């Protein structure tokens, strides 16, 4: 591979990792293209941080291969991989000034002092840290520390930036601000980045490509909107999107070329779906995002009915929790306008954007694609 034009910056091939006989990563293969921002997302314990540490070289895989910029680095020293990492805790050296923190890696490399100084100055400029260079980490705010941590990574001019939940120690407003800043830097530096987070908002907003991990396996890889529109399975459907997608249990009544017809406790519901296969009588899960459920207008019959049990007014939008008649399980959530006229204990009829509904079979895999999203593609993602 060496010498050729390499388009993939990071390539994992069937990477596995176990700690004390416990499998944490159960075989992950992945390509990260040059200049891409790839976000690993998943619940805690899904292995996303471990995977990042394997790429960083802080841990070595039990089996499999890791390539960075075309070189096999599976067992290379972390500093010899062309990667730089931004840690969740920032991991700044408390006894060094900001300038020394940023310069540290270059000093270890043994670069001449003048060159180090110039590079540190440039990085400080980019991150607006120039006036803080003489300070120690203790005297910095959370956001400033975060920027130093990023500066420490940038100064090394790595092939790949690794971010390990870099924003989770910041408060909410600063987190939003830093998120924008990281996105801006990523574009500006034309850098390849791998970013780990448990926050799906960060994943949606930052990623060119999201990798959803669960229990050491990749559930789906794709562009943010692609995962949102075409979740490959129930796990991804539940994980991406907030509030979560509503999942209703039903049975397949019949399936034709154009629609899958469901038997629900509230009667028959036909979900338009081209070319979907579903065995009659099989259990099936109907997935409806909160914004695809609406209160039926007066006189309109609607698809479902139930009672409002709780209303959360966030100002710009309103979440209504509705218990559907005859359905088991949790109430469904509706995302309504901020001024929506609903009240507690109200009986409501609901309409469903049937063209945006999702179907999942007994194994949890998606059944066909919602018609509204069928021909939309976004980015280079693919369903695995």
């Amino acid at each position, binding site marked *: 591979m060496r010498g050729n034009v390499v388009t993939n910056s990071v390539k994992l091939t069937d990477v596995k990792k176990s*700690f004390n006989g416990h499998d944490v990563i159960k075989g992950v293969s992945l390509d990260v293209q040059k200049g891409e921002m790839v976000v690993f997302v998943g619940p805690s314990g899904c292995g996303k941080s471990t995977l990042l540490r394997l790429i960083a070289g*802080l*841990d070595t895989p039990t089996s499999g291969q890791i390539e960075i910029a075309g070189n096999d680095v599976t067992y290379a020293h*972390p500093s010899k991989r062309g990667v730089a990492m931004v840690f969740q805790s920032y991991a700044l050296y408390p006894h060094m000034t900001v300038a020394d923190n940023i310069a540290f890696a270059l000093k270890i490399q043994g670069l001449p002092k003048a060159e180090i100084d110039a590079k540190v100055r440039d990085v400080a400029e980019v991150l607006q840290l120039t006036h803080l260079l003489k300070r120690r980490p203790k005297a910095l705010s959370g956001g400033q520390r975060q920027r130093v941590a990023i500066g420490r990574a940038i100064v090394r001019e790595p092939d790949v930036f690794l971010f390990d939940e870099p924003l989770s120690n910041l408060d909410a407003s600063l987190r939003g601000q830093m998120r924008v800043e990281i996105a801006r830097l990523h574009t500006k530096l034309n850098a390849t980045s791998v970013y780990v987070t448990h926050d799906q908002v960060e994943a949606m907003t930052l990623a060119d490509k999201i990798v959803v991990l669960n229990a050491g396996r990749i559930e789906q890889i794709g562009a943010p909107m692609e995962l949102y529109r075409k979740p490959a399975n129930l796990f991804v459907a539940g994980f991406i999107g907030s509030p979560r997608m509503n999942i209703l249990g039903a049975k397949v009544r019949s399936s034709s070329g154009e629609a899958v017809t469901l038997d629900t406790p509230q009667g028959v519901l036909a979900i338009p779906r081209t070319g979907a296969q579903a065995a009659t009588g099989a259990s099936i899960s109907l997935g409806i995002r909160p914004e695809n459920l609406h209160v039926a207008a007066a006189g309109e019959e609607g698809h479902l009915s139930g009672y409002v049990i709780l209303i959360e007014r966030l100002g710009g939008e309103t979440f209504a929790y509705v218990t559907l008649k005859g359905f088991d399980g949790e109430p469904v959530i509706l995302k309504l306008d901020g001024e929506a006229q609903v009240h507690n204990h109200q009986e409501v009829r609901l309409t469903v954007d049937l063209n945006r509904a999702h179907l999942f079979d007994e194994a949890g895999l998606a059944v066909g694609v919602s018609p509204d999203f069928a021909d939309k593609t976004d980015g280079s993602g693919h369903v695995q």
Partner: protein
Amino acid sequence: MYNNKLIGSLYVTPFVIGFLLFTAFPFVASFILSLTDARLQDQLGAAQFTGVANYTGMVADSTFQKSLGVTFAYVFITVPLKLAFALFIAVVLNFKLRGIGLFRTAFYLPSILGGSVAIAVVWRFVFAGDGLINQGLGSLGIGGVNWLGEPTTAMFSIVLLRLWQFGSAMVVFLAGLKAIPEDLYEAADLDGASRMKQFWMITLPLLTPVLFFNFIMQIVQAFQEFNGPYIITAGGPLKSSYLLPLMIYEEAFKYFNLGYSSALSWVLFIIIAIFTAVAFWSQKHWVFYAQDRGDDKGGH
């Protein structure tokens, strides 16, 4: 990096070498010596194997029995008194008052200096016939006591030197007290528990890990006391302050009986081992650990 066993082993190698050379080997050698009649001035090769004769000999050695009794008396008096006093003062100190730091310093200082020859020398003068204490008593019209010349009072003087050094135990207690969350007391206040009840029901149980630590350290140190009695009383009068470490030293370096001295040191070791073993064994019945202690695992 931290899972590299080879590099890790390299870092602990000095300890392993030091342990083998300066601890494990002498430890075993000392036991072997204790089964011989080795003498300091002779070649080791000249020593005869005498079996357990050194140990059985102790039964008939009245000096040993005296020394053993004195050692137990010294430990049993100093350790509880010192711990109780350290705890009492720590509780008094654990209060937001002006100048509390100054008192802590004053109480801690003696335990830093107390082991030194200089302090032992001062102690000898304080308890001397015309020393500080007798002068003080004299000014009150009380006749002087021959502190270092009477068995009971000689022991008293070296016991007092140890009690004087209660500061280190106190500092540990104080840190333990400060680690007890304030809201426990506030909750107890709301429950109507009296101060006394709070001490017995909250403070003491939560302090047991620290008490355990102090107890072990004090036992181990008290059994090894040497400087004080050696310099102040030289073990006298009538061997009334002749602690085992003094006897071990004198048997070896004054009477040159290496074999017997080694046997004595093994007796001391076994006594300390029994005490610490019992303490560790019993801790599950009385030591209360508020949180699970972090497991003994670093790195990945």
